[in-house]
């Protein structure tokens, strides 16, 4: 007759045998929860931010305090969760890695699944009891400091749920790692590898492609990244901490975390059932997996280390990454064999897997170095192309999209409105980009700060007929790009996608400001109807704007709008949500509808600065003004007074030249314009210096670029 075992007694006994871990957990969690919370309150008091009832204090309580419970706002705690999870798993199941212990436990009349349950629940209790206890203490400290209300309490409890889920993910990963190995050291290493393997693969894929392919765009299919993310415990861990800190926790991430933890536990149980007793004191539990594990670790790690060390070389060539990767894969193969056998004489064992690892690294590097699959020269045939989109980073200097202020990811390349079906001009642009690559004009070359006046980096999306998308980036001539944009802007849909004013929700706009050459934004006193009329007029002008004008002409000023700040809104629930102001709605001379509407409402854009308004003016020549230590004739020869003051000038470190002569002030004022933007594609004119002008009544100067006549 079988007698039943008392799980409670066994668990109690197991915890007693791991008393040091119980003590360590208690001490560390005590320091990281109640003590850290008390320190934070003290810190707030020191900084003078501890004011019960104040908005800032409430914001802190709503946004920062709940993060204490899952480590989102206390990174030490997040790290500690991982460490404690690994420790609980390793100490709980390390008996499998010792033949003596295994003989002791497995010879007893207790089934393996029961031993598993005993060690598993002991580990959970070892973490959960001190965690819940000290989390409760931290909540009480919050209560004593008057920050607890229903909202904060629910955030904290939700955050605790996140910490527990995060712990379970790491705990189960580490348990699985222990069952895949036969030594504690390899068990710990395997835990870390399983936690971050997916991240390393993602980083590697992106990093290698960026290193070797000039046209690579870091936008590997988002779906793939997400899938890898959901399959990578470390990513899921960070997602679960992030999502449980907010009220708006993503149920998908919560469910995924639960599923991930369950799958890891299921896998661990399954492997435990078949865990071979003879695995104890071997590196791996299943020796047949040794070559596979070696290959899976050696190849990505070698490339990763190669990529990492290459960053120290300045990233110019690929010699270092090739050399380091090959050297490292050889070294890793030896090291892994040493870990497997613990015998220097066995370093060269596993020749097949070593050769395969080396060949794979060399193969990958060859494919990348010589672009054997023609990644950079890829240009889909026109009959296989359904549409295209184009985007240049230069847009970010010219346009400001409201999505950026709302926490919404805006991807213009994939926006339906940005799709260009009449893509001939852009297709030619891509072909030109590929030709440029052969001349060494690559996006990387441009981004490194080479001569970029005539060249822009563009990212293109090739919408293929089979429904798939391909992305590439090229360095192309700005004029050709402008012409292609002009053609694209013949479509009203495209224009509406390109110009941020069409992305605005006019109903949520709380105010409009106007800024001109004086750079003093003035809030406009307009009714909602007037505000809408002004924006409608602006839209009308934008739809009719000449794209060349946006590149080559200076605007007269810009409109700025105020919308609710959703980030702040998350933190101050129930109170007046603050505004956020953004602009870059430039107004040009040709925007007659806008200008007349402004005039109608009593606002006028000043296109010149009156000399009388100038309190102080300082001129800063630049490399275009100075050559060989003296002013060039073209740029500054006319400034006789300036020349009289200094015959030579170090434009790099100079303090600037005060301009006091009314004539010269006027002359410089004639050469400045509204230069908050430097054209749709940037750098449309070369400045010959800059001036700082302190206007009367102002404490700080405005800076203007000076353009030669």
């Amino acid at each position: 007759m079988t007698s039943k075992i008392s799980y409670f007694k066994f668990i109690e006994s197991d915890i007693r045998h791991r008393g040091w871990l119980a003590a360590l957990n208690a001490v560390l969690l005590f320091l990281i929860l109640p003590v850290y919370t008390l320190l934070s309150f003290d810190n707030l008091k020191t900084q003078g931010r501890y004011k019960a009832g104040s908005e800032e204090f409430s914001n802190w309580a709503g946004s920062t305090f709940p993060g204490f419970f899952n480590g989102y706002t206390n990174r030490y705690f997040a790290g500690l969760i991982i460490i404690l999870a690994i420790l609980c798993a390793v100490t709980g199941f390390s008996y499998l890695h010792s033949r003596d212990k295994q003989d002791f436990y497995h010879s007893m009349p207790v089934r393996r699944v029961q031993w598993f349950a005993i060690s598993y629940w002991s580990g959970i209790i070892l973490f959960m009891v001190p965690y819940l206890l000290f989390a409760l203490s931290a909540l009480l400290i919050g209560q004593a400091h008057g920050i607890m209300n229903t909202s904060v309490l629910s955030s904290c409890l939700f955050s605790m749920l996140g910490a527990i889920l995060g712990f379970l993910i790491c705990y189960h990963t580490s348990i699985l790692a222990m069952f895949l190995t036969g030594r504690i050291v390899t068990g710990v290493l395997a835990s870390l590898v399983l936690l971050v393997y997916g991240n390393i693969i993602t980083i590697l894929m992106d990093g290698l492609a960026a290193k070797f392919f000039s046209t690579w765009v870091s936008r590997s299919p988002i779906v793939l990244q997400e899938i890898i993310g959901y399959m990578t415990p470390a990513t899921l861990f960070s997602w679960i901490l992030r999502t449980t800190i907010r009220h708006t926790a993503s149920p998908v991430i919560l469910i995924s975390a639960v599923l991930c933890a369950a799958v890891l536990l299921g896998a661990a149980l399954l492997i435990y059932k078949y865990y071979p007793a003879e695995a104890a004191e071997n590196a791996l539990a299943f020796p047949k997996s040794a070559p596979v594990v070696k290959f899976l670790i050696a190849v990505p790690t070698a490339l990763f280390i190669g990529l990492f060390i290459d960053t120290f070389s300045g990233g110019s060539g690929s010699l270092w990454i090739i050399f380091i990767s090959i050297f490292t894969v050889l070294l890793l193969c030896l090291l892994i064999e040493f870990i497997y056998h613990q015998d220097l004489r066995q370093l060269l064992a596993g020749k097949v897997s070593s050769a395969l690892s080396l060949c794979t690294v060399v193969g990958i590097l060859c494919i990348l170095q010589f672009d054997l699959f023609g990644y950079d020269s890829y240009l889909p045939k026109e009959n296989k192309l359904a549409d295209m989109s184009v985007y240049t980073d230069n847009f970010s200097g010219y346009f400001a999209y409201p999505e950026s202020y709302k926490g919404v990811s805006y991807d213009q390349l994939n926006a339906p409105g940005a799709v260009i079906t009449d893509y001939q001009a852009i297709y030619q642009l891509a072909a030109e980009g590929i030709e440029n690559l052969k001349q060494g004009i690559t996006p990387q070359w441009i981004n490194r700060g080479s001569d970029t006046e005539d060249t822009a980096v563009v990212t293109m999306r090739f919408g293929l007929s089979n429904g798939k998308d391909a992305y590439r980036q090229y360095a192309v001539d700005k004029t050709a790009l402008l012409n292609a944009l002009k053609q694209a802007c013949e479509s009203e849909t495209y224009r509406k996608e390109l110009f941020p004013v069409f992305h605005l929700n006019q109903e949520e706009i709380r105010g409009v400001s106007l800024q001109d050459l004086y750079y003093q934004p003035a809030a406009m006193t307009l009714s909602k109807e007037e505000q809408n009329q002004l924006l409608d007029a602006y839209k009308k002008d934008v739809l009719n704007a000449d794209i060349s004008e946006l590149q080559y002409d200076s605007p007269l000023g810009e409109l700025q709008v105020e919308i609710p700040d959703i980030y702040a809104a998350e933190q101050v629930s129930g109170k007046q949500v603050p505004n956020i102001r953004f602009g870059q709605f430039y107004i040009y001379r040709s925007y007659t509808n806008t200008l007349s509407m402004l005039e109608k409402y009593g606002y006028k854009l000043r296109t010149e600065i009156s000399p009388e308004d100038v309190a102080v003016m300082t001129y800063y020549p630049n490399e275009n003004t100075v050559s060989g230590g003296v002013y060039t004739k073209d740029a500054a020869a006319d400034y006789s007074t300036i020349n009289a003051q200094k015959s030579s000038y170090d434009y790099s470190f100079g303090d600037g030249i005060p301009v006091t002569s009314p004539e010269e002030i006027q002359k410089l004022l004639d050469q400045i314009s509204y230069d908050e933007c430097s054209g749709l594609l940037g750098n449309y004119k070369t400045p010959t210096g800059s001036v700082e002008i302190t206007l009367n009544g102002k404490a700080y100067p405005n800076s203007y670029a000076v353009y030669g006549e």
Partner: protein
Amino acid sequence: MIELNNIDKTFQNIHAIDHVTASISEGMIFGLVGSNGAGKSTLLRLISGILKPDSGALLVDGQTAYENRNAKENVCFLSDSAYFFPNATPAAMRDYYAMVYPQFDSKAFDSLVEKLDIALTRKLNTFSKGMKKQVSLLLGLCTGTKYLLCDETFDGLDPVMRQAVKSLFASELMKRDFTPVIASHNLRELEDICDSIGLLHKGKLLLTQDLDQMKYHVHKIQCVLPDEAREQQLLQELTVLQYEKSGSLMLITARGTKEALLDCVNRKSPVFAEILPLTLEEIFISETEVAGYDIKNLIL
């Protein structure tokens, strides 16, 4: 009864147990002898349910041992290097065993510990190897299990303690249904305690024999016969396990009772004849040589 039917176990490329078939009857002390690496520990680990056989059937009282609590409740395995919890004392180990084995006799343990002069509350990590062995044996004896599997149990015990343990085994055998299985690489160590012995060599069980039967049925004859023809006749009539001739002196190890063998020799009118006693070691060597194995150097 423990039944091993064609049991096979391989670790990676090591054939640890090679199709072993045997049975260990109840109420007797079974010795398992073999050189280092012969597969003794593996066989005990298989019987105690730690390992699962790759093939064959292993039954403890008719039940599979692996992952079977019913079967394992009747078996206690004492490993060659006993495991104790860190910082544990004999008392702590007693309590743990009492939790695991419902029939554990704590009073008997305390009494035996006192008799052997072992401190109940002293930490085991301060004990000598021999003292740890003693604690391990006492724990095993007090579990109350029917089968006690001892791996190299006498290794490390001094002669006095060895004798004491043998007495304890004998006492348990008298008191209850008890079957110890003792594995050792030293045949002499088992000679005076075991009722039956199995010889393992390279994973194969070469033989299992009842010791008394073995000693009763194998003898060494030393004789001188008048002529070669009678010598040949004698050799043909006997079941010879081993034969050597030094000058005219014949040394024959043969099967049969002392009386039967002497009678057979006397019929040949020997010049001189006597029956010599055989050590267990000699019997084993003879038996295994007949089976085609040369194990002279394997048995200590």
